[in-house]
């Protein structure tokens, strides 16, 4: 029943401002292992977004209050370069990046098997070199590849994507323009093997049906990006072909 509704509404959807179909992702590129010093790293481009992620650890916890005697902990730092946006952003954390750092840690932690590393800490950096809408999802996607590149035991590789509402249609992977002009945005992060959702936010106005459609569409987008994450890791370790 739900699938049918989904199908009918998709028939009537128009092409978007950048020529994409309602269920089309922006061009995406993922590369694992781009930094020498970091234990793991990744570079991701989604549309105009350019994002670097790095991982250090597991290593000795240098912030004592974070130490846990029975498991390892993670710390995420999401940061935007001053030149990543149209009007220069003042360097340093603001309320928005602090919030994203926190929810990114929550989104990644369920995939990590940190029980094997008590009293240790994993530092994850997500650096937005250029922003064009959807940086949190692309940033977490990048961080997940960097964690795998660092060789940290994982149950799954988290992956993020957003769906939203533009001109009344539910569409996948909002661009910056659609994010500004659209009526809603639902970014999610999932564990692709089980389909469990580890990050969910929403802003704007959606009916119950629209929300369900957006959630399904975003999950479909995540599954497609997950394949590209896998390819990047295989390429890094030459296991293709």
């Amino acid at each position, binding site marked *: 029943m739900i699938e049918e509704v989904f199908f009918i509404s998709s028939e009537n959807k128009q092409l978007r401002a950048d020529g994409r179909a309602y269920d089309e992702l922006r061009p995406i590129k993922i590369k694992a292992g781009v930094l020498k010093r970091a234990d793991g790293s990744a570079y991701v481009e989604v549309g105009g977004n350019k994002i670097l992620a790095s991982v250090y650890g597991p290593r000795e916890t240098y912030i004592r209050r974070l130490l846990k005697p029975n498991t390892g902990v993670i710390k995420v730092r999401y940061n935007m370069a001053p030149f990543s946006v149209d009007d220069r952003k003042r360097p340093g954390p603001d309320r928005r990046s602090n919030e994203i750092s926190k929810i990114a840690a929550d989104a990644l932690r369920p995939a990590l098997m940190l029980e094997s590393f008590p009293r240790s800490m994993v530092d994850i950096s997500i650096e937005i070199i250029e*922003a064009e809408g959807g940086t949190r999802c692309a940033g977490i996607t990048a961080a997940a590849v960097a964690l795998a590149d660092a060789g940290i035991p994982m149950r799954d590789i988290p992956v993020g994507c957003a769906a939203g509402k533009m001109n009344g249609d539910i569409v996948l992977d909002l661009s910056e323009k659609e994010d500004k002009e659209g009526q809603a945005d639902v970014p999610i992060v999932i564990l692709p093997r089980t389909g469990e959702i580890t990050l969910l936010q929403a802003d704007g106005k959606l009916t119950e049906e629209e929300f369900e459609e957006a959630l399904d569409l975003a999950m479909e987008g995540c599954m497609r990006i997950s394949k590209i994450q896998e390819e990047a890791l295989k390429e890094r370790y030459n296991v293709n072909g």
Partner: protein
Amino acid sequence: MNVVPEISKRSIVKLINNGKRADGRDFDQRREIVVEPNIITKAEGSAKVTLGDTQVIVGVKPSIGEPFADTPDVGVLMTNCEMLPMAAPEFEPGPPSPESIELARVVDRGIRESELVDLEKLCIEEGKKVWMLFIDLHVIDYDGNLFDCANIAVMAALLNTKLPTASIVDDELVLDEENLMDLPVRDKVALSTFVKIGNGMVLDPSLEEEEVLDARLSVGVTQNNSYISSMQKGGEVPLTRDEILDAVHTAIATKDEIFEYLE
């Protein structure tokens, strides 16, 4: 404390005293340089530069502001540096460290004192409105010699910086985004950093060499007329007069190796 440098120090010093470097380079040989200009669409000027495995990204963002009272008819240049925690295990987030402030200031001084950007051309209305250029340095991978890498990246970014034409019409500021002007760049500067280890001075130190350095010397040389436009000494050991003069001589003799990447 990091004990590896203490252990590797003896072998590095011994090699240098025998006229060799751990990675096989000559004393006055730089690592490979890769310049990728214009990598950030949203920045008015940008570049990524790789020196060996050291990587720096620079973005230039302009804004319009009031000039300083003592220089009412010149534009403003501001250089800021972030040593990102992703660049090295020992870099921590937070306010700029003394090292990152020194790096930003040394690079800034090289650019400023060589009068490379014609700042007078960045004046829109004397005493009231001038272009302010924010140069943001992002260190993403630290494998030694951030000074030279950052300097090349800043140069490369300035060379592709484009500003809208600004004019004053009826006391109103008008920005013409259709007609972009190149930044008025009239010279270039090459920064060459040497470190003293044992009895030798080596150019473009690797991370391994930087960790055991006795002293460091950076020399900025302009493309036109080979003027020395900036210098900075670091490290706890003094340098002799001859060591300094030799470094200056090498910096001048090898400056074109850097400029050829900026054509």
